[in-house]
């Protein structure tokens, strides 16, 4: 018996960042926590959970369902159910944008494209290959090569519309290309914009993108310019839900809420 109150938890343990969302019974977020995943996923999940409970002013007992997702989904000891991040991203997006859409999620270590129909059912999905191209890892490598903090890139990219084109797929080759551009005195801002364009190019060549395009994940959360670049590339507006980095965790929390509701209906 869960009563009318209570919370539902979604934990998304990604390769780079761990995200946790607590929602209430109406599906509104009561807490959001993000931490570096680090090396101990189980501990990170616990820390996120404790912090979220504190933020929401809730106790563990008030949490009536936990769904984990992401690479570290098996490491969340307090999860009742595990779901893939592909599923959770779809559910998280549809919860906020209840229409047919193509979701592009760009994470720290991978990316995915998910197609949902008007009822939110997944039609197909693709994940990237085993490579940093088109992921946050590519951007981190570029920041390292340029000697900049990764958090500083977006502001710099916004100062120019002239991107310096990076044509290599391979991160190592792209870094060599950057060296050549620097030698030629090309502006750093343009190189950063070019790196962002490269990420988008790698993603959009994975699949066709019909209809509304929704962009999620940590990369757009930290680099809003990515949305503009995607929009330029596909020639139409791109939707970014609020808190795009938490989409998977939100989807997981929504699934926890649905599971609890289904159980209650069955028990009633």
């Amino acid at each position, binding site marked *: 018996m869960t009563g009318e109150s209570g919370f539902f938890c979604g934990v998304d343990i990604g390769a780079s960042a761990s995200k946790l969302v607590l929602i209430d019974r109406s599906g509104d977020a009561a807490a959001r926590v993000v931490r570096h995943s680090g090396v101990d996923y189980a501990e990170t999940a616990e820390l996120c959970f404790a912090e979220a409970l504190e933020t929401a002013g809730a106790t563990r007992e008030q949490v009536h369902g936990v769904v984990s997702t992401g*690479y570290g989904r098996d490491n969340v000891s307090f999860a009742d159910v595990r*779901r*893939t*991040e*592909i*599923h959770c991203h779809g559910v998280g997006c549809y919860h906020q944008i209840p229409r047919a859409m193509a979701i592009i999620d760009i994470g720290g270590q*991978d990316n995915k494209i998910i197609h949902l129909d008007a009822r939110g*059912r*997944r*039609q*197909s*999905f*693709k*994940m990237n*290959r*085993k490579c940093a191209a088109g992921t946050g890892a590519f951007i981190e490598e570029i920041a390292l090569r340029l000697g900049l903090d990764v958090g500083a890139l977006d502001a710099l990219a916004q100062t120019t519309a002239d991107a310096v084109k990076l044509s290599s797929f391979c991160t190592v080759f792209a870094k060599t290309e950057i060296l050549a551009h620097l030698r030629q005195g090309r502006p750093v801002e343009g190189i950063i914009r070019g790196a962002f364009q490269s990420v988008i190019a790698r993603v959009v060549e994975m699949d066709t993108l019909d209809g509304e395009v929704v962009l999620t994940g940590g990369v757009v959360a930290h680099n809003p310019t990515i949305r503009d670049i995607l929009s330029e590339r596909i020639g139409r507006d791109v939707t970014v839900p609020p808190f795009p980095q938490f989409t998977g965790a939100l989807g997981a929390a929504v699934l926890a809420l649905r599971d609890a509701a289904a159980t209650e209906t069955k028990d009633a």
Partner: protein
Amino acid sequence: MRKNARDDPAARLGLDAGAAFGVSWTFQLDAAKGDTVPEEKKSLIKKIRSTGAMKKLMADYFNELKEAQDTGSAKIAWCTSVGPAELLRSFGFQVYFPENHGALLGASRIAAELIPAANAIGYSPDICSYLTSDVGAYLRKKTPLTPAFGLDGAPKADLLVYNTNQCRDVQDWLAFYQREWKVPLAGIDSPRNLGEITKNQVESLASQHKALIPLLEEVSGRRFDIDRLREVMESSYRCTQLWKTVLKLAEHKPSPLTFFDGTIHMGPAVVLRGDPRAEAYYKLLISELEERIAEGHSAVEDESLRFYWEGMPVWGKLRDHAETFAGHKACVVASTYCNSWIFEPLGSKDPFEGMALAYSELFIVRSEEYKEEYLARMVESYGIDGFIYHDAKTCPNNSNNRYGLPERIQETLGVPHVVINGDLNDLRMYSEEQARTQFEALVEQLHERGELR
């Protein structure tokens, strides 16, 4: 009763193992402890009783090769897996299949340490990893055939014979040994990407088979005997029909066997087709599988989803994949890979035309249109819910996702798919986590679509 280790080469290794393609998963367990299902977790894979007989048969096969090598009792011919094995056998050659060894190196998970040796002498990491693992095994003098069968390496060939129907890599692979051993290399150059197979193509291929005869006579020291060829062809045909029956039993819902079982039990159909012992084995296997059906047993407990595997197996991950699917009550019921050893035309009247057609009619040799129609037939007859395409990094020839086929199938038949990036042997090209997430996401998608039976 515990088996005498001397009778069972696998037992000498402390393994419950046969040989690839009759590879047992336990080769993998030994090679990579800790990388497989933890012991305390009960395996979901159901054992097939006949496996013991298959192991014995495969052991006999390797022992005969060893004897031929040690005593010169027979000449040894290497033959690519869908090459003219019947013709070679009719001359009394002991036929050895290098891809079988390639699969063994993959399944025993030592390929990754062997491939670099071949890379270092100029064989790119991007070409066939059967080739690079096998050449690496030769260079490093390391093969599971040593502990299992006392062979100090792959048996030395007196003759190397290929058919380029599957790829050009096989020719380059055997050419390596031609240079090493200074033995003759010959083969069949097949056209590829075939739609309908024309009379001209069959005639050309048949005459290429005939053109091999003088060389085979010279190396074997025997005259060509058409009656003997007919006999071998008939046995090979019967073997193929029995193998087909085995695979078709998986049309039953629930299926009595999985694709992963198939990759193991195809051993005799690959290396002993044309030998009546292979026929006897499949009769045994069929009766066991029919018994499973009659008793209501299935390969996967509570089978609720049925998948098709397109492309090469990931040899070093067979067991993990089998457990993963079984864990989701999903059975991979059919595959192009296992079907590739069904050679209907071997029953033809004219043995040369029969071989020509049998070895060019294969999926791998055919056009995209043919492949699309073929897969549609599989969906229909096996009741397929979803496709797993394996995009094998080093085998473009057997990675059928690269020209839009999965998308077309999904569009026309509404059957969803995932593409797993990996490789047959080079596990450095494979991401466990990505593959698992994709399998699971497809299962979730099918559940969501309410397609569960």
